[in-house]
């Protein structure tokens, strides 16, 4: 951490807003070019990976430029705001607002965004709901965030809190009760650049910047129905990771079904004997642990910087977990040294910790291969995205009753769909297929799965 400050008093560079913070997302400017500001007056609201913060002005002066668009990520150390030099006088420019939008590098924006220039991005409305009190509302960042989320202009609310502070209650009242509570920002008008009538929906590869347009067969949503959700926080982290995976790994998926009738009987037996509930998942984890002993290429990670493939002697099993706060991948370390019951206890513990958000950071790192239980709701096969730098992920579909052929006869059995995605850079197709075949075989003769894979 360091707080770089500019030696030029007219330049304010974005400081470290927390401790070891390198960047922050610009949520909203609170001033405009030409505004006269006081020291400590809020210039902008920004969100770091830790907090929503208000950035105050380090000095009094007249704003000469604002660098950064709302929604943009600003780097610590970059120039955020410049002030007019003392010689320029303090008279605000009459066209300050225009200058502000012009000062943005509009040429760099995609077409659709340029059409929107001037409207407010996000859900903050400029329409006052209540008579303006004049000036900036006093409110905590949490309340400001709530106001923004509810599409309420906080400066127009008469605060009932300490010293006129706008409280959470005030914001909710303004959002619910007030007549004509503003809708969120208007939906983007269809740009007309989407596929033409009758054309296939596939974009030609040469088409520039695929901006989303509603398919022509769907009516454009009526005003007020479209919700704009800022792309940030956990969601953005997930998106970046998945994007990176797709951009890095060469994905391919092999699929098969395992007849888990015997396994189903065994797990019920095990549950009865141990008094613990035992699901299929620990058995599948145990099968993976065993299979990758024969196919070590799958229990590997790629060190991109060193251009090396790291094959790991033990299996640290990542478990893709869907929580209300987003996707994360808690890890069972040394899963191959655990028996099925122990694995089951780990899974239950991780699920609980995922729900109350108490997973320690170290339990979210270091997996060597990942399993994704996609079948809890529906769905049979999948094309899962690899949790890089790993090279393999197994998606487990919903176990269902189906017809199986055994010794030339038709039977009704339990079928578990399995989809194994690998990074083709590291794993060959035949290798993946043979590994999946072994997993299927292990699941179909499950007794050996009870003991740890590694002794």
């Amino acid at each position, binding site marked *: *951490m*360091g*707080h*770089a*400050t500019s030696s030029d008093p007219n330049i*304010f*560079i*974005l*400081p*470290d*807003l*927390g*401790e*070891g*913070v390198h960047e922050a997302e610009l949520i909203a400017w609170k001033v405009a070019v030409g505004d006269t500001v006081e020291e*400590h007056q809020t210039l902008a609201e920004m969100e770091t990976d*830790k*907090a*929503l*913060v*208000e*950035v*105050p*002005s*380090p000095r009094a002066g007249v704003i000469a430029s604002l660098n950064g668009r709302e929604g943009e990520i600003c780097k610590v150390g970059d120039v955020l705001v410049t002030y007019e030099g003392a010689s320029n006088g303090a008279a605000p420019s009459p066209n300050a607002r225009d200058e502000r939008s012009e000062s943005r590098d509009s040429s760099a924006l995609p077409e659709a965004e340029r059409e929107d220039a001037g409207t407010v991005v996000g859900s903050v409305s400029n329409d006052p709901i209540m008579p303006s009190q004049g000036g900036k509302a006093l409110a905590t*960042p*949490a309340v400001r965030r709530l106001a923004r989320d509810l599409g309420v202009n906080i400066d127009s609310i008469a605060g009932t809190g*300490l010293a006129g502070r706008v*409280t*959470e209650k005030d914001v909710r009242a303004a959002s619910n009760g007030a007549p004509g509570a503003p809708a969120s920002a208007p939906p983007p008008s269809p740009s007309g650049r989407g596929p033409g009538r009758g054309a296939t929906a596939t974009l030609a590869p040469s088409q520039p910047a695929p901006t989303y347009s509603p398919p022509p067969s769907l009516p454009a949503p009526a005003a007020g129905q479209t919700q704009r959700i800022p792309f940030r926080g956990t969601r953005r982290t997930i998106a970046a990771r998945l994007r990176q995976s797709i951009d890095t790994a060469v994905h391919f998926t092999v699929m098969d079904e395992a007849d888990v009738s015997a396994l189903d009987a065994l797990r019920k037996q095990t549950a009865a004997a141990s008094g613990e509930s035992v699901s299929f998942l620990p058995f599948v984890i145990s099968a993976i642990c065993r299979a990758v002993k024969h196919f070590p290429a799958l229990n590997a990670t790629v060190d991109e910087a060193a251009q090396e493939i790291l094959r790991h002697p033990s299996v640290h099993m990542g478990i893709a977990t869907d929580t209300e706060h987003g996707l994360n991948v808690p890890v069972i370390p040394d899963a191959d040294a655990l028996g099925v019951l122990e694995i089951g206890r780990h899974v239950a513990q991780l699920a609980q910790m995922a729900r109350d958000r108490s997973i320690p950071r170290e339990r979210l790192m270091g997996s060597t291969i990942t399993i994704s239980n996609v079948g809890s709701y529906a769905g049979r096969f999948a094309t899962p995205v690899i949790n890089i730098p790993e090279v393999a992920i197994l998606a487990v579909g919903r176990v269902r009753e189906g017809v199986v052929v055994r010794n030339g006869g038709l039977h009704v059995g339990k079928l578990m769909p399995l989809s194994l995605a690998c990074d083709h850079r590291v794993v060959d197709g035949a290798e993946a297929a043979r590994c999946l075949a072994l997993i299927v075989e292990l699941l179909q003769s499950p007794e050996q799965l009870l003991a740890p894979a590694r002794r």
Partner: protein
Amino acid sequence: MPIKVAYQATIEYMQILDEQGGLDAKLARDTLTDDQVVMLYEHMSMCRRLDEIAFKLQRSGRLGTYPQNMGQEAIASVALAARPQDWMVPCYRENAALYLHGLPPEMILLHWMGDERGNQIPEGLNITPMSIPIGSHMLHAAGIGWAARIRGDDQVAFTFFGDGATSEGDFHEACNFAGVMHAPVVFICQNNQWAISTPRSKQTRSETFAQKGIAYGLKVRQVDGNDIFAIFRAAREAVADALKGQPTMIETLTYRLGDHTTADDARRYRDPAELEAARKRDPLIRTRKYLESKDLWSADQEEAMIERNKAQVDDIVARATNIEKPKTTDIFDAMFATIPPELARQRDTMQTNSLGQFPQQETLRRGATAHSPTQSPAHA
């Protein structure tokens, strides 16, 4: 043989000034004078303003990590119970008491700007530098108290720490040491309900933090930590006991209205309703209500004070920010009264043995004024 009760204890809780500004006149007798209450109110208000500005200084890149004191200003009352010769051994959320004990407020800002001069306590002030690692300093207080007793000095050591610090081993060692050595120490646990994101309910299974002191033979007390009267009375009684060889532990029930530090966002783990409820117990609100009810304070006075505080805080900030830049050679000057020749040579050449005395390092002499005002964070 019948089973007998080996030991039984009770913990007293004291509140004198309630949330509405109502005073228990009986308990308040011979505590704070009207003038002292007015002074404390003005002082706490100034501290609040300084705290807010320090927060903004961090957000605009002019201060490192800063732990806000907001909501805990009533701790200033301890400084009125302390005598000038008594020691303050603080952590970082009792600025209001330190200023009143004589610490120039700009020193706290300097500390958080990463300037060592913020820790250079002026001669004659019995205050130790803020201790950022949790709980380490209670032992120093125990030692200071013990030394005072051995030397026969008429001194008491006050030490301040949070609820989380009671889970550190050092706390228990310090309490035990003070108890068994009859050291004149007053342990003040500012229970603000949160140790960063760990709530009080997950910190201890004890009903109170105060009762932990009983185990070490301390006299213990729980008081309303937003009540300047209760804190004053408990602290003054603790001084009298300490001088008789009886150390005390006072648990002050208060609330951290801000984040743990500027690197924290309490909204991520704290219920907003809890915060709203705590705001109603703000020490400033009740003290003002009390003063107004006694016609000791008016809206005009309030307005004048706000202006005065603004100017005073601006002045404090200016003193911190306008301090002359430290010289590179300063790093040699703090340790030895007479600098050893080897260090003198290093200072004069800015070359070090360990780096092999590269002649290129001579350039450090010219370019070395760059001053990195950073500070290792408070226990994050």
